[in-house]
């Protein structure tokens, strides 16, 4: 069974939803939709009138059960080339060139089991949300902890949905790095090794870890987990690159 070749196709923006001040979800309708796996991404390509092209990757936020469409959640990077185009220019009904779904390493499905530690920084939560949504849709109860670093409460993408999904073996632990509301009892610093140690101790032995977000955060997590004795082949990473 030869795989279908990965080709560019023209998607239509069928919905846009604000998630936070800086992040929005874009629903794309795909003429050649293919089933995806939680954690995979699409490549997006913009072409200017003079032929100049810019290409970026965006993780799929929606679970595999949503057929015909994918949701991408994109954070607006000021001065960025591609993300501001989504936020400032694209409207419902507009067309955008994409290819996907892409990737087979940074993916999770219930059969892979756990216990699952998901570590996100900023928009790095997007592919992990696809995993959490799939887990919920499948009625799966794999013990799962999401450790999610954001600047402040209002920067937490999917906050209400995560609140609603918590329970049934899912713990959501935000850590707020810049500001936190009065009476905040959660973590309030960048992810570090002691934090990882605490979270792992509560989760149980032999965790399967997915870490995603700015490269520096992912480096910290990967190095911390090695020090804590988690075998490297139980840790999968997706670096988004630098952050300011």
């Amino acid at each position, binding site marked *: 069974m030869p*795989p279908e*070749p*990965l080709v560019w196709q023209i998607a239509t923006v069928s919905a846009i939803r604000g998630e936070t001040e800086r992040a929005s979800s874009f629903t794309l309708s795909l003429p050649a939709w293919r089933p995806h*796996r939680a954690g995979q*991404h699409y*490549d997006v390509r913009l072409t200017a009138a003079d032929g100049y092209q810019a290409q970026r*990757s965006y993780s799929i936020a929606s679970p595999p059960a949503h057929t015909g469409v994918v949701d991408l959640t994109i954070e607006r990077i000021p001065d960025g080339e591609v993300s501001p185009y989504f936020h400032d220019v694209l409207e419902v009904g507009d067309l955008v060139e994409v*290819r*996907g779904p*892409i*990737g*087979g*390493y*940074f*993916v*999770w*499905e219930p*059969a*892979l089991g756990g216990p699952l530690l998901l570590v996100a920084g900023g928009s790095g939560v997007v592919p992990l949300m696809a995993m959490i949504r799939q887990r919920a849709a499948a009625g799966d109860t794999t013990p799962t902890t999401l450790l999610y670093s954001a600047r402040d409460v209002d920067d937490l993408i999917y906050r209400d949905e995560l609140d609603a999904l918590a329970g049934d073996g899912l713990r959501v632990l935000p850590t707020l790095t810049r500001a936190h509301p009065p009476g905040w009892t959660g973590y309030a610093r960048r992810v570090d090794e002691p934090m990882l140690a605490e979270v792992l101790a509560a989760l149980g032995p032999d965790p*399967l870890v997915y870490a995603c977000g700015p*490269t*520096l955060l992912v*480096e910290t997590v990967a190095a911390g987990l090695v020090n804590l004795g988690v075998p*490297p*082949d*139980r840790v*999968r*990473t*997706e*670096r*988004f*690159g*630098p952050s300011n």
Partner: protein
Amino acid sequence: MFDESTLDANAVAGELEVLFAVEMTAVVGKCAHCGNEAAVGTLRAYVNAPGVVLRCSICGEVVIAWAWTPTGGRVDRSGASWLGQPSGAAPSAAAPSEA
């Protein structure tokens, strides 16, 4: 060896799939420099050169590199002793180094 702009091979998984005509990040490879065996998805990606360079996460040497020419892609995989199939049925190559 690795800096802030480092990505994972997953960031260029689309290009890899076009070059090799299969999903490559779950494929297991052996680094010809240090002997590390791991999924291609563990390699670090550098995309700022004219081409793309994938380096071993253990020793930092180049395992796979490619450039696009007017006629298509040209891949140098001499940094890999071998590239194999994902281990077992688990499509995401869980524990690629386990026998």
